[in-house]
């Protein structure tokens, strides 16, 4: 079965690009921050320097881990769902569920190892850059040079591999339960959320609220130290909403049904696919929520922090600026990661709809009508995702503003929300439009033949 797995990998490079990219970027983040721990140990760091390195490795690396597991799982699940037909074919010629599982796990492991291998060099460079910034901020003495060692490599390969294998097992379990290929069966995209998912979302939201309360109470007089806690509130809240995205999208669709109807048949078709393919489209919305929540959250936290520092003088200005840079670098990486995730998920999801587009064209839709429908759907996803993400980022922003500047109104104005919204909309619409155009390139009659 492993032979089959490798052959299947080689033949379908494009289908696995999303998973491979997720593994690569994830491993890069984990290894880059893991190398801070190697640096601390091999450089014999003590006191504040050791604490800085360890905390950064743990906190940022920890977030990297959560995001990597999320990204690898969602891309692998998506690719397994897209191959439901192929898997059903394998089952019909006599493959046992165990063999399918071994094949999917083998593929995932292959992807994880390939992604982590490719990540070694960029992670080494990124780690060096971060240590350089820490040197500039005088948070780590220059005598301690950057080291990329066993911890970085171990966590990078280990976590990516475990995340991929677990994701493959989950995906195999799901495809095993599905009925063999009936072309009309996949329409029944039941958007009911499974209870473990709801439970996880509730736990995450609880943790986020807890962080928000901590920021305003225990951390109130801790100054800059309250920032990571407030950031956690925003990130945990975003993750919670990302898990709930099918339910959010369903609710939003109900609200938007009327306004969308004004767009004629394109609007009507957009409502139908939002309602009937909720789960699939929600998978696209999840990275938008994370992208917005983390992006807007961090920018406002930093602006508020800047405002607080402007009135106080407990930190030299140069150091504060380096810290700010460091903060933006870390968040920049995470936001970039989510942006790539978003583009990937959307590309895969749209390419998969070639057949559906073909059916619409054969029923009398012009390519323009198909593109109009796709654009409307993408606009809804971007709008709902941005609103949810921006709303949940308040969980971090408002408590931090109360703690730091004594006012619930954060610093920075609406600029960040506008920029993030424009970016999210441009990414979503641009990708969906481009992918749909490509899916429309082949004749409609060919597009519907399986």
């Amino acid at each position, binding site marked *: 079965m492993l032979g089959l797995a490798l052959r299947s990998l080689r033949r379908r490079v494009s289908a696995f690009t999303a998973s491979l990219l997720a593994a690569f970027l994830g491993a890069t983040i984990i290894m880059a921050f893991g190398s801070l721990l190697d640096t601390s140990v091999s450089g014999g760091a003590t006191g504040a320097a050791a604490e800085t390195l360890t905390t950064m490795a743990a906190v940022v690396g920890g977030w990297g881990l959560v995001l990597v597991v999320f990204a690898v799982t969602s891309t692998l699940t998506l690719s397994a769902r897209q191959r439901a037909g192929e898997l059903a074919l394998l089952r019909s010629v006599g493959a046992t569920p165990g063999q399918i599982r071994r094949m999917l796990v083998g593929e995932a492991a292959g992807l994880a190892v390939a992604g982590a291998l490719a990540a070694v060099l960029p992670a080494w460079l990124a780690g060096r850059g971060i240590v350089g910034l820490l040197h500039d901020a005088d948070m780590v003495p220059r005598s301690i040079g950057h080291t990329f060692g066993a911890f970085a490599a171990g966590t990078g390969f280990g976590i990516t591999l475990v995340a991929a294998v677990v994701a493959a097992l989950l995906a195999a379990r799901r495809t095993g339960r599905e009925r063999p290929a009936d072309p*009309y069966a996949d329409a029944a995209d039941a958007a009911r959320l499974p209870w473990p998912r709801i439970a996880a979302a509730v736990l995450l939201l609880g943790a986020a609220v807890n962080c928000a309360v901590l920021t305003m109470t225990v951390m109130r007089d801790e100054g800059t130290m309250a920032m990571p806690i407030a950031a956690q509130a925003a990130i945990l809240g975003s993750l919670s909403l990302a898990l709930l995205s099918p339910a959010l999208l369903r609710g939003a669709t109900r609200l938007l049904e009327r306004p969308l109807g004004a767009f004629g048949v394109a609007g009507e078709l957009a409502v139908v696919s939002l309602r009937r393919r909720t789960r699939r489209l929600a998978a696209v919305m999840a990275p938008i929520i994370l992208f917005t929540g983390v992006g807007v959250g961090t920018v406002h936290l930093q602006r508020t922090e800047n405002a607080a520092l402007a009135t106080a003088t407990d930190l030299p200005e140069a150091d504060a600026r380096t810290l700010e840079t460091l903060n933006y670098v870390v968040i920049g990486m995470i936001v970039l990661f989510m942006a790539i995730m978003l583009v990937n998920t959307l590309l895969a999801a749209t390419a998969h709809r070639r057949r559906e587009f073909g059916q*619409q064209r054969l029923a009398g839709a012009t390519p323009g009508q198909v593109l109009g429908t796709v654009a409307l759907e993408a606009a809804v996803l971007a709008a709902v995702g941005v609103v949810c993400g921006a709303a949940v980022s308040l969980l971090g922003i408002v408590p931090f503003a109360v703690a730091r500047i004594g006012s619930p109104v954060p610093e920075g104005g609406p600029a960040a929300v506008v920029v993030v919204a424009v970016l999210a909309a441009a990414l979503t619409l641009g990708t969906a439009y481009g992918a749909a155009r490509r899916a429309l390139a082949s004749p409609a*009659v060919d597009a519907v033949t399986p």
Partner: protein
Amino acid sequence: MTVRTAAGEALRLENVRKVHGTGDGKVDALAGVSVALPAGSFTAVMGPSGSGKSTLLQCAAGLDTPTGGRVFVDGAELAGRNEAALTRFRRSRIGFVFQQLNLLPTLDVLQNVTLPLKLAGRRVDTAHAVETLRRVGLGDRLHRMPAELSGGQRQRVAIARALVARPPVLFADEPTGALDTRSAREVLGLLRETVRAHGRTVVMVTHDPVAAAHADAVLFLADGRLVGRLAAPTAEAVAERMTHLGDDAEVQRARTGA
């Protein structure tokens, strides 16, 4: 742009050719087919696998572009600059029942049937759509999803969808291919009825002599050429003719010197 053809002609093909591939891999799917079908006729197109039946149907319906030759549907030449133009042409003149049906899995029965009208920006006459569905025996299944229907019921939805825009010409690609004999007979009866009661022209590709026997005439296709025509067909005569189709093709090739 509109070129008038002989009155009463629903479909006219003039030396239609279709070449797949290039160089050594070149295959003549259609090697020059000319045919004219009168309005209000029911024609079956038969031939062995690979004879070009489906290609002929798709070229005639504007779903595929011929390499050469001209196609006239309901008196107008089927020539579009791009897909959007061809789509607009098809909307008003052509109904197509696909072999894979191509119902949209996310739409219910009535929504599937009214979709072509909505896409064409035409007024949706729900009463007419319901009436069409009632006529194909699905009056009580208006709000079912395709996944909840049997193969025969899905086939009838596809026929109702093709008929709802009242196109002068209806093409059907193996409409009974996946059906049991009873469903198949119902579907053929529906097509027959469309011709008799509503004056539409039906062109159906099939490989089943029994299905072909429901038509007014059968056209035989082999190696991308028309090799024969049989009026008032019976299943036995069609089957007999199919058996010797290879010989007919050989003779015609010798005659044309191809």
